[in-house]
């Protein structure tokens, strides 16, 4: 670990500066490559052109519609997946045997390409937001359920005992004792669940929807409007980064408040 001592020594080598410089350098190289004819405009337009398109697109009506559709799908998927996940987590904790039986299956659902069920859902619900919502919510459900279960199991047995000795009702025990004790671990599960809802929704839109941000990216690829395609990829990336940063901030705040 000798190298650590050199970190952040001079002002210019501060990590955030180096990071920003690296990102800018990559953009500059891409710009030069596209402008200089090294990369065909049909493969990749210059980043400046992408950004210009991005600004135009963000101001346009169809973009807002797509954003609203995707946002609503993510929100419903997360709401549904989060709720079911919480219930499963509580159930598996309350009945440890069922938890032990189902846990390996729940964990391996992480590795399941649940999207293979899309043709089935498509046949049942038609081409709308429902199949997307269902798949995204099953993805969101897993981390919520696992974290809830682990969080509840980690509660020291003295706490429920204390609640009993204080003559708490069952509702009071859940609300005043168990829930606050579990929150620091449940929240990361919810955060991860939300991120999975975003990933699931956009990925599903990409392959099967008729609206939404993910769909639009694929649409522009198929109609050879490469600049717009890149602009949409950028938009999705930026939205996802904002969501991620926001959730991390939220998670850290909650954890700090709980301590």
């Amino acid at each position, binding site marked *: 670990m000798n190298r650590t001592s050199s970190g952040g020594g001079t002002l210019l080598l501060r990590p955030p500066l180096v990071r920003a410089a690296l990102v800018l350098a990559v953009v500059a190289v891409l710009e030069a490559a596209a402008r200089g004819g090294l990369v065909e405009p049909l493969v990749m337009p210059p980043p400046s052109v992408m950004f210009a398109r991005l600004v135009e697109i963000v101001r346009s009506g169809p973009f807002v519609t797509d954003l609203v559709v995707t946002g609503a799908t993510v929100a419903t998927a997360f709401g549904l997946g989060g709720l079911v996940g919480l219930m499963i987590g509580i159930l598996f904790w309350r009945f440890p045997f069922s938890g032990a039986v189902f846990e390996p299956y729940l964990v391996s659902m992480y590795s399941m390409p649940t999207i293979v069920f899309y043709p*089935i859902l498509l046949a049942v619900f038609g081409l709308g937001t429902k199949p997307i919502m269902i798949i995204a919510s099953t993805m969101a459900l897993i981390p919520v359920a696992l974290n809830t279960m682990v969080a509840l199991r980690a509660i020291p047995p003295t706490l429920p005992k204390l609640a009993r000795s204080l003559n708490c009702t069952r509702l009071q025990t859940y609300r005043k004792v168990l829930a606050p004790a579990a929150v620091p671990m449940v929240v990361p599960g919810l*955060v991860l669940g939300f991120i999975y809802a975003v990933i699931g929704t956009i990925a599903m839109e990409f392959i099967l929807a008729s609206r939404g941000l993910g769909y639009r990216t694929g649409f*522009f690829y198929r109609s050879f409007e490469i600049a717009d395609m890149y602009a949409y990829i950028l938009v999705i990336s930026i939205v996802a980064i904002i969501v991620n940063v926001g959730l991390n901030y939220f998670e850290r705040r909650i954890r700090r408040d709980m301590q």
Partner: protein
Amino acid sequence: MSTIETSTVTGLDTVSYPRAARSRRWLLPAGRVAVPVVALLLWLVLAPLTELVPAPIPTVKEAWDGFATGWIYPGIQATASAVFTGFALGTAFAFPAGYLLGRSRYLNRVFEPLITGTFAIPRIIVYPILLTLFGVGFQAETGMVAISAFFPIVMSTAAAVRQASRTLLKLGRSLNASRAQIAMKIVIPEVAPGIMVGIRIGFSISFIAAIIAEFFAAKEGLGLMISRAHAGLDLPRMYAIVLLVMIAAFGGNMILWWAERRLRRS
């Protein structure tokens, strides 16, 4: 590394079930075996209620035919080669990168936000870029798999390497071990189970990425075969491939998980 390491919980090894373990040892495995059996029974009972779901027997027969007559082999071959090549490629980049990020605090501070910040970006949306670069086919799909595998492996490797024991590192330095020796003799053997977690997650994600990529655009592969069977309303075939994909994903995950536990114990 914020969310991912702190909150991805498997919990499988950590919890014990004293009551079930002591008095009725057979009950837990029996319960676990019962889950797919009950699912199969439900499928058998519920299938006749709808036209959208074929019964299990024609589905299994179709899957069997796939191997007997060979119609499934080109799909398996295409998907498997994209998954394994892409996974190997992604790991080849991710493992050294993760090792460096885990060993150097400075590099970690520079790159970690770039990696975790992009965690929520659905990787599949870069697939059109790969398609415009390479055209539809093996290369684009392999690239997609490699990108998908890269991120979880970098993050888990870096997190695992960071856990390497200070004392052992000091011992290595006091013995004048070279950097390569420290890596090969001390850090990697010590944190192997943690690295294996990344490999397992990376492999699952590779498989999922390949199937999604094939749904979108491919010349061959199981994902494409599912879409084709769906378009041609060949439901038994569609369900047969879906079933095989699920079994392959489950089996692969179980094997890697078993390897992980072996490493942890030794």
